[in-house]
């Protein structure tokens, strides 16, 4: 439009402006397009564009329209790649924006409404691709091995689930769907975590997560993996042959009821991160249970309500931990604790005084395999007021051990490259602003801080480096020294060179007694018929062989075949990632199944009973807030399902500010205000928090004035959000 036309259309422009202004913030809630296009099928002049369309959403789009979008965007992407030597990641139109990913000849494109921040649009596409690759392997192989119809059904299922479960806020942050932890009894969260740990002790199992009605109850997986497990493939999926993975594994026995095992594909980073921390256990057997405890304890059981039993705790762990997370260098000196001693030399004492008595005084008294549940009581009870009979277990130095729980983040922050998941978990823990975040027993943390060396230097000092090297990739077979407390348990035995362990034991004088005990017990129970990793691979030789042809291409595409074991009990789903041999190992499957069945049933019943039916926010809401955990990628918010105009203003501001927080790393606080609302936001490396008051503020002029309510928002946010477990101090 020329300037002149503009001039004559001023009034129209103003109308348009106003309309734009009043437009509801709702188009965010849908995706416009998603498609996968195979450029290799459209090479010649005469090739129809439709030949290259592998999948198109929404499916009812006219074929002409599909061809138009695919053809044009593919052409533009090629052209831009030519000029810039890198493909466009985002193509924006006036009313649509497309996130684009080029994968060889394949082109993935997701079209969203322009209101959605660029970064979220890209993350969504990544998530979709991730889910597809997870269940189907590399896209080129998937389309080679499976029919387009099957894969179309697969896509439809993924997209339907994502669209059904993704609210506006989830879209903005592309966050995981998590259970509102304030609505759940913290003990149940801990129980879920313990179920996962129990399963982890079964052979082949790497890590897992528990979902209830599609929401995360507890997870041991990094957020990117949890996101994939959250989405179920089409029902017929597991009967199909895997695309890039192994050949059929003829199973002798049928799977237990409600259990499915399907081949899935991890990215190399994911595989490394999953396998990494059990290997650390191997290097330091005495620490294994502690590490397990630690990992699960840090992630899920963070009840964010002030009602949590551990509310008496102070938040003093947190500022320090933040600092640590932000400045890894400062952590380095501590990483090198040469003898596994805490700085104050106090922690090992803790271990001896508190953990051991706990073990001794509370023998497992639950149903069969209930290591998990017994541990729940053992470990949690110091805070659990419900069962006073065990409150005799006195933890004298709770404060100190809390402090140390900040320290135990150090080893992994010092080794960020090797620390994969641990690093994340540590940051997660330390970065969590919720004061209740340490309801995992500090005792256990103390042990871990002492006994879980994760750096090579540490290992070599302990004389255990050789062992570490000898057992590469031995992940599923981690030893569990404390199994001696569960004599009834039949686990696959393992063998460990005692000398190594003893050596390490002596290297840890403070913890010696405990370590020795564990080691001895472990040896005795694992001695017969032990199978270290090389053997177990031999055992599964045939299946490994069968896998080979498929494995090679998958691996070279950066994907690692793995198994996903899922066990659903009504709304509750236990998902475990396991090494491939699990599929062929009936005994191991039985073990996982039986070790978790009872607890899962119990957990399901409890969750059903305790979770409120209607999660609608209370009508007396006087403010909106959103707290985003950047590490775990989960949200806490109090927005209702149906957004009011004021809520939409909040969402609009949140999406803008979230983009800026992502782009400007030094930005840590923002207040934005227009005529009808003011929104305050702050962020740290670990979290982002947004706050809006709903009460209609007195209209101001916009002239800088200290009386302006917008500038008192930070104080109000600090005060109001405390009760949601969000600490902005």
């Amino acid at each position: 439009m020329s300037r002149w036309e503009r001039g004559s259309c001023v009034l129209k422009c103003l109308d348009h402006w106003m309309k734009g202004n009043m437009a509801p913030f709702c188009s965010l809630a849908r995706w416009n397009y998603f498609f996968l296009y195979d450029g290799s099928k459209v090479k010649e002049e005469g090739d129809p564009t439709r030949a290259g369309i592998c999948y198109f959403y929404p499916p009812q789009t006219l074929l002409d329209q599909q061809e138009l979008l695919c053809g044009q965007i593919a052409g533009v992407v090629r052209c831009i790649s030519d000029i810039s030597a890198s493909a466009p990641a985002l193509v924006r139109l006036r009313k649509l924006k497309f996130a684009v990913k080029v994968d060889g000849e394949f082109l993935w494109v997701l079209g969203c409404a322009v209101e959605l921040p660029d970064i979220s649009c890209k993350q969504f596409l990544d998530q979709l691709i991730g889910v597809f690759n997870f269940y189907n392997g590399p896209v080129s192989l998937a389309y080679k091995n499976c029919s387009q119809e099957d894969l179309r059904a697969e896509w439809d299922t993924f997209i339907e689930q994502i669209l059904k479960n993704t609210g506006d806020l989830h879209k903005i942050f592309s966050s995981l769907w998590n259970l509102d932890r304030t609505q759940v009894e913290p003990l149940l969260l801990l129980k879920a975590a313990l179920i996962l740990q129990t399963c982890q002790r079964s052979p082949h199992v790497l890590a897992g997560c528990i979902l209830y009605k599609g929401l995360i109850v507890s997870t041991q997986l990094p957020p990117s993996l949890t996101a994939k497990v959250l989405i179920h493939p089409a029902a017929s999926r597991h009967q199909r042959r895997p695309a890039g993975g192994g050949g059929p594994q003829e199973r002798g026995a049928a799977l237990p009821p409600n259990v499915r095992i399907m081949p899935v594909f991890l990215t190399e980073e994911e595989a490394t991160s999953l396998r990494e921390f059990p290997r650390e256990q191997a290097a330091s057997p005495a620490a294994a249970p502690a590490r397990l405890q630690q990992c699960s304890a840090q992630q899920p059981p963070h009840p964010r309500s002030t009602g949590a039993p551990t509310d008496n705790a102070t938040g003093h762990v947190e500022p320090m931990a933040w600092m640590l997370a932000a400045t890894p260098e400062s952590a380095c000196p501590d990483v090198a604790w040469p003898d596994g001693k805490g700085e104050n030399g106090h922690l090992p004492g803790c271990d001896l005084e508190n953990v051991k008595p706990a073990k001794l005084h509370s023998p497992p008294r639950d149903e069969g395999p209930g290591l998990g549940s017994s541990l729940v009581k053992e470990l949690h009870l110091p805070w659990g007021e419900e069962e006073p009979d065990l409150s005799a277990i006195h933890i004298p130095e709770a404060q100190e051990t809390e402090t140390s729980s900040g320290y135990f983040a150090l080893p992994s922050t010092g080794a960020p490259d090797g620390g994969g998941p641990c690093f994340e978990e540590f940051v997660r823990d330390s970065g969590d602003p919720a004061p209740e975040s340490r309801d995992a027993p500090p005792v256990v943390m103390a042990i871990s801080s002492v006994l879980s060396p994760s750096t090579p230097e540490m290992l070599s000092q302990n004389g255990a480096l050789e062992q570490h090297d000898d057992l590469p990739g031995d992940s599923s077979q981690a030893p569990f020294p404390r199994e001696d407390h569960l004599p009834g348990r039949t686990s696959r035995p393992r063998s460990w060179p005692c000398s190594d362990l003893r050596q390490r034991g002596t290297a840890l004088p403070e913890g010696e007694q405990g370590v020795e005990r564990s080691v001895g017990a472990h040896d005795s129970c694992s001695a017969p018929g032990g199978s270290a990793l090389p053997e177990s691979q031999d055992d599964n030789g045939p299946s490994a062989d069968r896998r080979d042809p498929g494995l090679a291409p998958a691996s070279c595409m950066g994907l690692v075949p793995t198994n996903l074991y899922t066990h659903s009990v009504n709304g509750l789903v236990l998902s475990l990632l396991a090494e491939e041999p699990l599929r062929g190992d009936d005994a191991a499957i039985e073990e996982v199944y039986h070790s978790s069945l009872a607890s899962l049933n119990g957990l399901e019943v409890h969750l059903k009973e305790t979770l409120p039916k209607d999660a609608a926010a209370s009508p007396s809401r006087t403010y909106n807030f959103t707290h985003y955990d950047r590490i775990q990628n989960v949200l806490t918010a109090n927005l209702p399902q149906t957004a009011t105009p004021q809520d939409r203003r909040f969402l609009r501001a949140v999406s803008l500010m979230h983009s800026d927080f992502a782009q400007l790393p030094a930005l840590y606080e923002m207040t934005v205000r227009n005529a009808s609302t003011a929104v305050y936001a702050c962020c740290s490396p670990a979290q982002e928090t947004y706050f809006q008051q709903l009460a209609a503020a007195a209209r101001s002029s916009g002239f800088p004035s200290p009386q302006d309510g917008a500038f008192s928002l930070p104080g109000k946010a600090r005060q109001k959000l405390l009760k949601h477990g969000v600490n902005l101090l």
Partner: protein
Amino acid sequence: MKCVLVATEGAEVLFYWTDEAFAESLRLKFGRSENEGEELPALEDQLSTLLAPVIISSMTMLEKLSDTYTCFSTENGDYLYVLHLFGECLFVAINGDHTEDEGDLRQKLCVLKYLFEVHFGLVTVDGQLVRKELRPPDRERRVQVWEHFQSLLRTYGRLREREQCFAVEAVERLIHPQLCELCIEALERHVIQAVNSSPERAGEEALHAFLLVHSKLLAFYSSHSASSLRPADLLALILLVQDRYPSESTAEDDDPQETDSFSLPEEYFTPAPSPGEQSSGSTVWLDEGTPPTDAPQIAEDTLQMLVPHSPVASGPRRIFLDASVKESHCPMVPHTAYCLPLWPGINMVLLTKSPGSPLALVLCQLLDAFSLLEKKLKEGQEAGTTLRSHPLMGDLRQRMDKFVKNRGGQEIQSTWLEFKSKAFSRSEPGSSWELLQACGKVKRQLCAIYRLSFLTTAPGRGGPHLPQQLQDKVQSIMQEKLTDWKDFLLVKSRRNVTMVSYPHARAPRLVHFIYVDRTTGQMVAPSLSSSKRISSELGRGPLATFIRTKVWSLIRLARRYLQKGYATLLFREGDFCFSYFLWFENEMGYKLQIIEVPVLSDDSTCIGVLGGDYYRKLLRYYSKSHPAEAVKCHELLALHLSVIPTDVLVQQAGELARRLWETSRLPLL
């Protein structure tokens, strides 16, 4: 790695500009694929080859989806492409070095389009005619035109990067009431009146005259018959002057060899304020007490500024500006601009109106009516019959008949007859499509008349203009009047010391501020020199550079949030705290309630003045709810150290705004 391209729907290059890095990358690309020894295709052809798929695809999308590309970004934002469709021309800006964000690129495109309008006026309405102007068939002429706009783009980029006034797009004044008064009087008596009373003026009427010291405005005088000049037009004129006579601070990096002429350290005549001076609290806001004679005498040669870049004839130039003609507002009225350099760094600009402006008004109104008609036809609801009875049509027919009768051109007559037969014939009314075609033809004829009247006979191409002697006379009079002041002015423009003491003495932790009156389009800020040689109130060196980047990023953020409707912002980033306030007040300074500022899409023309005149629209929008009073709009951007508590910051900002308001109340024009 920067590039700007303007192309037609058919991917024909109408204009391009690249920086050296981008040209080099093209050379590499084409050098590799072409055979050795074979000559590389011209840069424009390389660009056209590379970008044709994108251009054609965007036209296809527009046709099929009624939507088109606005932006591409590659992984990590390494490359950013911004596309904007103006009429039938697609404007593309590319950045491959992270130095500009989407807003910057879009603004650059809007500014370029605005510069086209300033140069070609209503001819830009017609795609084919503007093509003739931007891409003359004569190769030499084409190179000349492109070089001119390439140079303007470079100058614009430089000014936007270095001058606060171009960063916020508001005119910065050189504040010195005494001198200002003297200049205004001289401009009135010895320039405007002198020209208008001269018998040699050849029908030209002097309307405005103003003095610039570097990019800052010293004094401005408009004749009584003239309508006011828009801030956007004034900024565009400053840009043109800066392009023709680049001042040393903005051009020094391009001509490093020139630095030798500056052997004297500038502290010699502008000593950096010592801490004692700063804390003395003496506000130098209006430092009338600094007579120019107090300044140490500087040898003439040390103040020798750069010679103009190109010895292009500094003759008058045809430009098109908004004006009122016969009481009615008319965009793109032809003016003639004379840029008369007084000394290097100090220029006088004289704007005259040619006798043809009533014709411009008529053409403008007719084109407006036909455009409206076209729009209705495109919307499709008005077929021939209903259209004929439309009140607009009767009026249009009458005016057009009169116009054709008076002008009497052969072509316009036949085109108009053809249109009439389609639109008004009772026997065989034309279809909408036919009418649309006929309407397009009439518009083109009108544009052609406009082009013939104002561009073909432009002063630059030998059209009528003020005789050289008259220009010389006016120039020498002003030189005479200002000769005692010129050194003082040159220094003052660098250190346009508004309130040296303010930031430190009255507002601890305040690092910088920019205060803008959007009604008058003027800004006030402590100086932030980009020059290595000239220190500003913040000193020079890395700290000053660092703060400059902070200020510029604050401006960007403020724009982005204003685009999304937020009129108040407070950010804390690293060691700094940014705040931005926009408010409205009435003539008396009474603060009015804030309204919902429109939320604009990312691809809307930017929040600026040069390309889009955002604030003018905003003011009109606001005035709709306050019809009774004159509404003023102000902005304050402040940069504090982040240790400042929010309440103190807000209080300081309020006080600062009040003080600046008081001082800006002094009549200056």
